[in-house]
């Protein structure tokens, strides 16, 4: 009898140790993930420090990128990143809204799944494929037909006309924006679809019962109810667009200057890094590239955090655990 009790004691003690060890291992794994993010920020700051010390905070507002004379400023790349992402957002937001609305409210049930999967496949295509498609297929078509048409119509308008002027080369800021729009479209659309689906059926049915049309339900019931989620989805898309590298590098044209026209080539932070980092020698150039990477990381971090907070708010309203 006593031996069996001892046995049980021994087993339970052993299992207790195993329990503690397994708990520690799993916690360690979670902490590794945490520390990597910290490590990313620290290593970027350390490597960017020489450039930041040399040029000061004005590094981010200086539009000079002269490798030979070692004068660096980040404004050209930051401008390119922001402008191309904004173009992408302006195009992708209404399209995603339309797609999400179609998938949740209009689409016949048997098409819902295949079409939803098709949009998600658009997100699965690697960015380098978008880049090749943009450079070899889309840019020539864009330069031959769409850009002249834009120049002839929008280019004639006062004030914004200058945005659509210049030689229609195909590749450039606008082309990069459109390719980016196609890439972020599935992300925004799928977030919007998910949040549209949580709108309580009772709300929608009451509106329909009052005689509202589908559009009125979408505009006055669904959209106000899911506002935070929709904005969160858009910001998530913006975060993607800002950091996108390969597709942009192929089609933005990689010119180190700021031009008023959207037809003109430019460069983004990511494309500058992809093009120059491999050839940069340790020194100011190298450090300036790290400073650009730091800027990109901080911008996307802030935007993604805001997006996340907004989505959490919507979930709270739902009373659902994330």
């Amino acid at each position: 009898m006593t031996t069996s009790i001892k046995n049980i004691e021994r087993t339970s003690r052993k299992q207790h140790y195993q329990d503690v060890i397994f708990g520690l291992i799993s916690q360690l794994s979670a902490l590794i993930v945490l520390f990597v993010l910290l490590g990313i920020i620290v290593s970027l700051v350390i490597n960017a420090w020489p450039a930041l010390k040399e040029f000061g905070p004005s590094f981010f507002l200086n539009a000079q990128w002269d490798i030979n004379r070692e004068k660096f400023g980040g404004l050209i790349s930051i401008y390119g990143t922001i402008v191309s992402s904004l173009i992408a957002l302006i195009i992708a937001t209404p399209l995603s809204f339309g797609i999400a609305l179609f998938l949740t409210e209009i689409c016949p049930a048997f098409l819902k799944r295949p079409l939803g999967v098709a949009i998600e496949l658009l997100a699965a295509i690697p960015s380098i494929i978008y880049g090749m498609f943009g450079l070899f297929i889309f840019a020539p078509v864009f330069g031959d037909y769409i850009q002249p048409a834009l120049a002839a119509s929008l280019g004639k308008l006062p004030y914004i006309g200058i945005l659509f002027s210049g030689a229609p080369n195909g590749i450039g800021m606008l082309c990069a924006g459109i390719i980016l729009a196609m890439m972020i479209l599935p992300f925004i659309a799928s977030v919007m679809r998910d949040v549209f689906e949580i709108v309580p059926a009772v709300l929608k049915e009451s509106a329909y019962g009052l005689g509202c049309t589908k559009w009125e339900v979408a505009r006055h019931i669904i959209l106000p109810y899911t506002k935070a989620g929709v904005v969160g989805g858009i910001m998530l898309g913006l975060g993607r667009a800002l950091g996108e590298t390969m597709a942009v590098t192929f089609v933005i044209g990689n010119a180190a200057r700021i031009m008023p026209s959207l037809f003109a080539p430019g460069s983004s932070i990511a494309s500058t890094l992809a093009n120059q980092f491999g050839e940069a020698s340790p020194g100011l150039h190298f450090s300036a590239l790290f400073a650009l990477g730091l800027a990109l990381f901080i911008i996307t971090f802030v935007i993604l955090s805001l997006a996340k907070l907004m989505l959490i708010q919507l979930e709270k309203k739902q009373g659902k655990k994330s």
Partner: protein
Amino acid sequence: MSDILESKKAILAKRKRTNKIALTMSMVAMSIGMFFLLWILSVLFIKGFSSLNLEMFTVDTPAPGSAGGLRNAIVGSFMLVLTCTLISSPLGILAGIFLSEYGAKSRVAAITRFVTDIMLSAPSIVIGLFVYAAMVAQMEHFSGWAGTVALALIAIPVVVRTTENMLQLVPGSLREAAFALGAPKWKVSLMIVLRAAKSGVITGVLLALARVSGETAPLLFTALNNQFFSTNMNTPMANLPVVIFQFAMSPYDNWVSLAWGGALLITLSVLGLNILARVFFREKV
């Protein structure tokens, strides 16, 4: 009286018109999305299949101007993705178990959750920069291992988040039943909860795989490229994405054609993994 009726009719007609326009726009948006998907895929298939041949799998990447294949790049990519999976799956699944089973409501878990969500969409090129600074600069040469680590950093958040979500779907009564039988927590986590959520977790790993197999940016500064066949992870490694990037930007026609072939291979494997993940998930849940 008839005036009011008239104006009501007019308002109704206007509302119906607005509705029709809005719904049409929504359908147009859907077709634009579909149009681009089909356009990209058809171009890729036409260009890719026309440059696909047996040599692509048996010969290494060529020097400028000469003919060649993609053998070293295919093998390199395969090795990078495989080692990345070996690192990221256990780490990601363990972290997911911690978030779901151990630290569910603790502050550490909340912060980790937030951070993984950010890392999920963090710019991959910045992760490349980080691994360059942390590994390549320290070892003073590019290497396959650095590429593996960079890819793993991108894959881990995907695995962590899907694992956690899938484990949370396991009914609490299952855990309680196991605890009532006297099972220790680690056995409950590993042998009851994880096993019940197996197909979901595998889906997460497959999705992470799909995500990293097309990644280019983080490999540019880590694994770099290698013109020759090599399975040594300590040296720069050829891999499909970087080869595609270099060849597509090159002026040689046969290089560009090889790039299209490589692009087709990558897209097929990524789409294949995605579909596989979906099948896995649907069978069980």
